[in-house]
């Protein structure tokens, strides 16, 4: 029996299980670049208008931080930049798809069911990678064809399509490696997301600072450096190919050496009796949430160090562009520019912290679905106490990670400007100002969990809408009332001189109301709802 026996059957099984999800993300991600191109053709028909957009918007540091650099004012070049954020989503989707079909299956014991039939030892990993690679290739083909159909040059469209494919392929392979390292799908996702976060952080640091070498280390930075439509540099595509081969060369030997169900490290024995801390619902919640809060804090700390360090350079990066210098002068000089940049990056941190709050709140849903909530609620534990033990982490978690992000940002920015104490305080305040908006989304997750538990994960959709409104609302020139839907629109710009705290109180009150309603409905509903 060869190591790949049965791969074909597994591929078919995965395609069948994913027959909705896979086409959905492929299609959505393939259509978006085309619509960007069409809107650039419509909104900026002349070269002069596009040049103004390039200088005024596309080279704005916060746009560059989010999307990556813009190399020229052709419609194709601007479209490639606008689609930069999509590469992150392609990477995320590919990563999660591979983990879903490898470690999640193994953890649930379904792989064992199949392992008993005729399957080679490489079949599982290979099938998951093949399915995801195929999805990425289809996505790339559709993307390139869509871009050509809008009237863009074929060469650049093919280059951008290849960038899409290879970005997905690199992160799919990273997912394959992560799935071999830990025993749990959650752990594998954590490793994969940490890798993705590191890649984004490096790209962001490289693209916004004067020197872009960190971007050359990031698989998310290579796409822009192929320069689709702006004098393609085809050789850059060798970098993701090499990275894929390297990651696969690491993943396969590990996959062979370990047992089914096991990770690389053998599971350690635990204590025979529970320590004093594990004696109530809050002790249990701490055990369930402490890993998350630690890793989120580490991630936010690293991000803060990078962003704070890059801020001073970002403040100076606009020199030479008369229009930008004019804007910068209005903001209060280079330090005003750095503040604007830090404000934008900390508001991104606020969105991420809201994601953490939602994740912590939805842990309750996971506990209920897995059958963990029932035995606990059949003891002397009140429903409200159990709920609050988790909500405490959904609310305090964002405070902790945003405080960490604020302090680390203040530290490195203060070091670059030489006034650490002052910047520590300012950045801490700017970080914590994001907390109430993050609480609103966490509170919404608690409400959904109490009221409509089957739809609790809709909180993620709301967060996605907030991200879109906040990051692209201004670019798309959306109406103010629509932007006002997102709680983050109301967060005051703490780094500016004049701001009022009233919106923070209102957002906090809203969050408390949402969470309290969730608590009241949870006390009255059936458990478990499956």
């Amino acid at each position, binding site marked *: 029996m060869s190591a790949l026996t049965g791969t074909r059957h597994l591929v078919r099984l995965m395609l069948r*299980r994913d027959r909705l999800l896979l086409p959905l993300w492929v299609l959505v991600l393939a259509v978006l670049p085309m619509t960007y191109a069409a809107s650039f053709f419509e909104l900026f028909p002349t070269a002069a208008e596009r040049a103004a957009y390039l200088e005024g918007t596309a080279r704005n540091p916060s746009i560059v931080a989010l999307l990556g650099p813009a190399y020229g004012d052709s419609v194709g070049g601007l479209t490639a930049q606008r689609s930069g954020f999509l590469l992150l989503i392609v990477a995320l989707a590919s990563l999660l798809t591979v983990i*879903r079909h490898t470690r*999640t*299956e193994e*953890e*649930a014991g379904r792989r064992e069911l199949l392992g008993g039939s005729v399957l080679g030892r490489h079949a599982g990993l290979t099938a998951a990678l093949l399915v995801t690679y195929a999805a990425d290739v289809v996505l790339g083909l559709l993307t390139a064809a869509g871009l050509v159909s809008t009237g863009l040059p074929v060469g650049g469209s093919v280059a951008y399509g290849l960038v899409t494919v290879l970005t997905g392929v690199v992160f799919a392979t990273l997912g394959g490696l992560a799935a071999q390292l830990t*025993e*749990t799908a959650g752990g594998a996702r954590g490793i994969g997301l940490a890798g993705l976060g590191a890649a984004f952080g490096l790209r962001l640091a490289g693209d916004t600072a004067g020197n872009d070498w960190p971007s050359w280390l990031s698989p998310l930075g290579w796409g822009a450096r192929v320069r689709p439509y702006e004098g393609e540099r085809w050789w850059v595509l060798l970098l993701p190919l090499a990275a894929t081969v390297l990651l696969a060369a690491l993943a396969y030997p590990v996959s062979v050496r370990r047992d089914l169900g096991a990770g690389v490290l053998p*599971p*350690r*024995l*635990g*204590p*025979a*009796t*529970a*320590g004093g801390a*594990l*004696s*109530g*619902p809050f*002790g*249990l919640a701490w*055990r*369930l949430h402490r890993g998350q809060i630690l890793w989120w804090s580490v991630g936010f700390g690293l991000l803060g160090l990078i962003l704070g360090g890059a801020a001073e350079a970002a403040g100076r990066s606009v020199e030479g562009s008369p229009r930008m210098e004019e804007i910068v002068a209005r903001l209060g000089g280079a330090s005003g520019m750095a503040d604007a940049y830090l404000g934008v990056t900390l508001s991104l941190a606020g969105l991420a912290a809201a994601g953490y709050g939602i994740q912590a709140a939805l842990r309750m849903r996971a506990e209920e*679905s*897995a*059958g*963990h909530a*029932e*035995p*606990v*609620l*059949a*003891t*002397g*534990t*009140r*429903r409200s106490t159990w709920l609050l033990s988790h909500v405490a982490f959904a609310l305090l978690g964002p405070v902790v990670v945003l405080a960490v992000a604020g302090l680390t940002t203040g530290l490195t920015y203060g070091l670059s400007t030489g006034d650490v104490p002052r910047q520590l305080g300012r950045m801490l305040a700017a970080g914590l100002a994001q907390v109430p908006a993050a609480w609103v989304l966490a509170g919404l997750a608690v409400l959904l969990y109490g009221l409509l538990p089957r739809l609790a994960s809709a909180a993620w959709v709301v967060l996605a809408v907030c991200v879109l409104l906040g990051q692209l609302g201004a670019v798309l020139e959306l109406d103010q009332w629509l932007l006002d839907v997102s709680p983050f629109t109301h967060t005051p710009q703490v780094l500016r001189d004049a701001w009022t705290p009233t919106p923070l109180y209102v957002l906090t009150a809203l969050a408390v109301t949402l969470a309290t309603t969730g608590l009241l409905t949870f006390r*009255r509903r*059936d*458990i*478990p*709802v*499956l």
Partner: protein
Amino acid sequence: METAIDVSGLVKTFGRTRALDGLDLTVRTGEVHGFLGPNGSGKSTTIRVLLGLLRADAGAVRLLGGDPWRDAVALHRRLAYVPGDVTLWPNLSGGEVIDLLGRLRGGLDPKRRAELLESFELDPRKKGRTYSKGNRQKVGLVAALASDVELLILDEPTSGLDPLMEEVFQHWVRRARQDGRTVLLSSHILAEVEALCDRVTIIRAGRTVESGTLGDLRHLHRTAIDAEVTAPLDGLADLPGVHDLRVEGQRVRFDVDTASLDAALRRLTELGVRSLVSTPPTLEELFLRHYETASSSDAASSSGVARPETADRS
């Protein structure tokens, strides 16, 4: 307090599915009560109502003298529950889970905990994700049996246990009864029910179909008779309570209602009995009669009952 659990006319619906449809259940204090019924007949749903996890739509439910929905927390300190599928937190050891659940109930007996671990041969240091199905059940059982509570609610607790461990389980349930505890035992294992239960309640499609001691239940059913007689057979078929009469020459076989047993035997002795075998109804027959009817007529209404193992974790 005479009765530990008193349920009458209990109704619970999930959407259009009527999971419980006027169920009655009485468990006397100090007894081991068997709770039987085919899959999906509503046993777990009933237990969740008793635990105050599900709210009853209609009917009266009393548990240890209180209302399980309103007084949930106070009542939960006096009972211990083992679900049919014990799921453990992957990163907590078995020992940690046992202590945690015990503490949440208000403490457990450390001496009994150690005894239980030894007799169930359970290593408490392993992490939740590494236990087999049977060992997960043992964790739940040790946590419940080591707790100082008045009432044990066990929902198919021995699924996945090997026969040796089944023996250990029965030993500990008997000991719990000796200590004056009440046990509600939902089970499919007939030998277990026969060995342990003072009284049983059989339900089907959300309704109670029979309740009483095993003796009572047997009494309601037919005895099989297989006899050889000397005289030509005559007058048996007309007797009330005789069913399925089959005659092969001198040999005669039939089933007879318990109430008509006396009359039927008199008739047989009149005919001259050469040999006689009488078989009392087995528990299997009692069950199968209810279960078979259930699967043919109530299959549709018994689906859709919430069970944790149906959760799709993909």
